[in-house]
């Protein structure tokens, strides 16, 4: 039921780092992503893939994701957001989930990643 995470990720200097974000359970969601001060994504899509650049350029930068998910699927009250990075030293994949009490409810997921 966690909806707020802060993580530090060690990224490979020479590799392209990529974020794949997925809003699951057939729910509707919108995501904005800031890399440092720059807004690099503001989309209402379930699957988002973002190329963040080479690892060496990301070190000591912060990536902030804000995702709002609304339960529009009458078949389930579950909501989820999954984050996956390519280009990190250790494989990173994490899924946040929350079950709402009734249809139409909104869940606010935020994830902050500090690269080093």
């Amino acid at each position, binding site marked *: 039921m966690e*909806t*707020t*995470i*802060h*993580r*530090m990720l*060690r990224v490979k200097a020479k590799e392209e780092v990529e974020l794949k974000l*997925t*809003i*699951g*359970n*057939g*729910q*509707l*969601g*919108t*995501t*904005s992503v*800031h890399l440092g001060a720059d807004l690099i994504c*503001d989309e*209402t*899509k*379930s*699957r988002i893939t973002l190329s963040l650049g080479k690892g060496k350029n990301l*070190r*000591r930068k912060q990536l*902030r994701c*804000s*995702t*709002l998910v*609304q*339960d*529009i*699927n*009458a*078949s*389930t*009250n*579950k909501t*989820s957001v*999954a984050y996956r990075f390519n280009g990190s030293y250790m494989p990173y994949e994490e*899924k946040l*989930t929350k*079950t709402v009490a*009734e*249809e*139409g*409810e*909104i869940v*606010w997921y*935020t994830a*902050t990643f*500090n*690269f*080093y």
Partner: protein
Amino acid sequence: MITHKESFTKFRLVPLIVLVVMLSITDELPAQDAGKVEEQLNLLVAPSSVGLSLLDVDASSVSRPQTPTDIIVTVRNKTNEFTEIPSEFGLDLQPYWVLGGGGATYEELAGDEVTFRSILQNFRVSLATKSRIDSSFAGTDSLLTVTSSDFAIGLNLPIARGKRSSETIEHFKAIKDGLKGLNRILRTKLDSARKNSESYQILSLRLDTLEGELSSLTDAGDDLQKQLDAQTAAQKMAEMILNDARIAALKIEKAAILAQQEKLEAEMKDVIFKSQSAELEAQKKLVADAPNERIGFKLELAGGIVTDVPGQDFDKARLRTAGIWVTGGYESKSLGFLGVARSLADGKNGDRTSWDIGGRIVADVGPQLSCSIEAAYRFINMYAGANMNTWRTAFRADYLVGKNKSLAVTFGRDFEGKKSGTLLTLVQLVLGFGSARPIDS
């Protein structure tokens, strides 16, 4: 959403396809209210949850669990810790969603493509049981009555579901825009709260320093690893151990800082979220009011069986009722054509088995009223002494009387040779439950 609401719109589905599937019943059955069951199932549509309709389970006795744990808890409660058969109970399940459904996206759900996954997502299983006083079981002693139970299982497999109407698409665009706007407000407020929180900023500064230290130490560790050779092995190893120890200490500190930041941010989010309650309610209402109209080609298979357990003795269980429907057709904005091939079996040695084929035209007369005319041809009828090649014709009007309630009135002429006679009148109140969204009539 798609699926719950669609269950109430099946009368707008439409024909095509005629696949006749044979059903037969060979076991002996009680002369129970076979006529009633058939009457309930006689409309030219497959029931939205076949298992529940076959036993006419009351809506208040139906559970719609969303997880395997919900199923176990519900069944355990209803059966008094698995020790007794409930007098009336139904389960309506969508296996794909009960088992997770985490990988499904909104675009798949809203889309109109027919894929294996879209079929699985809409697949529905209904299970029901209902007890009754069974005087027929008493044999020659008319004073002796026992409790018998019926068990039903039904499957609904919507294959093609049409595509979303332009109104539905527009409405969901408004929902998306609203959500995007809300996210913008919330994230801006959160950024501002982060900047204004001294505690958060102190932690961020320390985290920034930690990142630098960790980065250099891990790079140094990698370099030491590369420099490892026979002559300097012992010295380098010692340096590496010290380096790793320092990294481990920093990681512990890092984890503590991140956890504190998470806690602070969660508190900030809670305050911000509450401050936007009016906007959140408005957004919620948009979903509650969302139409779910699908137009175009639709096709559904449905089937179910009922097993009778006289005296609740499972050794004496026997198949009693079975039905199968193939429903398909085309629906436009205000007009629909539906075709159905159907077989219903309910009687001793299959002597109440009938095979029908029919069609239906549905027209929306106004925003709240829709009317339909249907005709069905019974080309095989095993009712004892009944006529073959008979017709059923009916007129039905559905009037939306509330947000998710509709009143349906049906009258016409039934098949010949029925116990219940040939004049057909039926008044039904259709209630949408499990969702606050309106029934789409």
